[in-house]
């Protein structure tokens, strides 16, 4: 097989990325135990101090430890993004599957609804929904779900429509397969790979959007730690205390890049097996 060498390279890359990802994820999961200081302890005498032994990443305008706040905020930044992706993946797949499999007027109605959601610039829509629901982590997650589900519904629908015509589905019908057999045995397993690739690549987008909402004041509220919020809070001190912005941005950057690279790697791995061709 000519793909053998590439496959090995992909595998090595996957291992390296997973190690790096776990190096980021594990400390953030254990954030509050690893944090050198209390992330919510204000100390005005120590405000805006540069990196030191006690405060490795420096302190913010209220004298809180930035490293501790980054570790504390990771949960809000990363795990909320993972949760949003999981939710939109499920909802989008269900809606797309229903539309694509049923066809006819059900398809028409569901796709018109999807189009209405897609008619707005996506982040503006999220900002509008978050604004209506009011600030807070849960509402920010809902607004991001509203923004992201359409991609999955459309992708799932196009995959189902394409798979529905496959000869092995006809063969299954000849064997007496009912709708549920066809969906669970044949359609879902074959559409999951391309959907997973999209989801993996979307994690970083959602993380960024979540930070964006918090930056605008629509997501996580002070004094809770969240990276976008920390970047926003650090803005007035960009000239005098750049670490207030630099370290949360670096954390966000590292996580986004890592998730993107992992998503790419996943896509390559699935493509090499010849299953990821159904991009839509």
């Amino acid at each position, binding site marked *: 097989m000519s793909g053998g060498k590439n496959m090995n390279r992909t595998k090595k890359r996957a291992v390296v990325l997973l190690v790096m990802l776990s190096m980021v994820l594990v400390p953030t999961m254990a954030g509050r135990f690893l944090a050198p200081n209390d992330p919510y302890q204000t100390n005005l005498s120590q405000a805006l101090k540069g990196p030191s032994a006690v405060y490795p990443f420096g302190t913010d305008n209220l004298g809180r430890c930035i490293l501790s706040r980054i570790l504390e905020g990771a949960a809000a930044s990363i795990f909320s993004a993972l949760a949003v992706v999981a939710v939109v993946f499920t909802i989008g797949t269900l809606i797309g599957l229903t539309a694509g499999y049923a066809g006819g007027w059900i398809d028409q109605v569901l796709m018109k609804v999807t189009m209405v959601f897609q008619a707005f610039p996506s982040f503006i829509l999220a900002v509008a929904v978050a604004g209506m629901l009011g600030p807070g982590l849960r509402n920010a997650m809902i607004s991001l779900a509203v923004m992201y589900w359409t991609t999955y519904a459309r992708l799932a629908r196009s995959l189902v429509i394409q798979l529905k015509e496959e*000869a092995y589905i*006809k063969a299954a019908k000849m064997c007496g397969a009912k709708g549920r057999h066809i969906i669970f045995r044949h359609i879902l397993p074959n559409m999951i790979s391309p959907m997973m690739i999209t989801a993996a690549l979307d994690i970083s987008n959602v993380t960024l959007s979540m930070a964006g909402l918090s930056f605008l004041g629509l997501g996580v509220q002070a004094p809770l730690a969240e990276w976008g919020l920390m970047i926003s809070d650090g803005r007035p001190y960009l000239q005098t205390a750049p670490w207030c912005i630099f370290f949360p941005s670096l954390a966000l950057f590292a996580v986004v890049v890592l998730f993107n690279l992992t998503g790419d790697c996943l896509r390559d791995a699935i493509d090499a097996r010849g299953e990821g061709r159904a991009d839509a």
Partner: protein
Amino acid sequence: MAECILEVKDLTKRFRGRDKKGREDTEEQAAVDGVSFSIEKGECLGLIGESGSGKSTTAYMAAGLLKPDRGECLFHGRHMQMVFQDPMKAMNPRKKVIDSISEGLLYHRNGLSRAQIREKALEAMDMVQIDRSFAERYSRELSGGECQRATIARAILIRPELLICDEVTSALDVSVQAQIIRLLDSLKKRLRLSYLFISHDIALVSSICDRVAVMYRGKIVEIGRTKDVIADPQNEYTRCLIDSILTL
């Protein structure tokens, strides 16, 4: 006259074409137009014609996969099965070969256990002469011929009386085509199968079919015993079709 296994009466299917702007055409195209034929038990009927003549549409309607606009198909048996053109596409790429073959018994088990179904599937693999070691592989790891044998194994698993073969050899190498035809011919005798054998290759059809029907633009233009049709074609189009092989 012997007993009929399949009677097709006045079968018609129209498809709406689309004009250049993508609007649905007001004029419907009849893909299949008033087709009637019958297949006797143990008989092999060939259905030949060029691409777009409505052979496959007829096959899908006979198999019940497509609803006819007019006419009916009467099947006087318990099971019918179908074998498709491209064997690679007829196997779910995410299932092991044995699971694909078992499918026929999966949905109406008649009280069979999983192990019994598996054993029957393995027996079916023996009948189509593919090694049992292929059972745990995926279809992409098989050659075209092996894969087509596996789809035939799936089709014969529930012991159908009628097998509809839709261009079963056209995706295969020439050397493999002959093997598949020989296999189908031996299965016909062993399992007392009837065939509706669709092909554009009159030479291939003549080697296995008792009778042959020639389709042109959705209609059957000629039907008769294979050797009669080939020796003395009555229809202009049939003559064209036969001449085209002889000149090759």
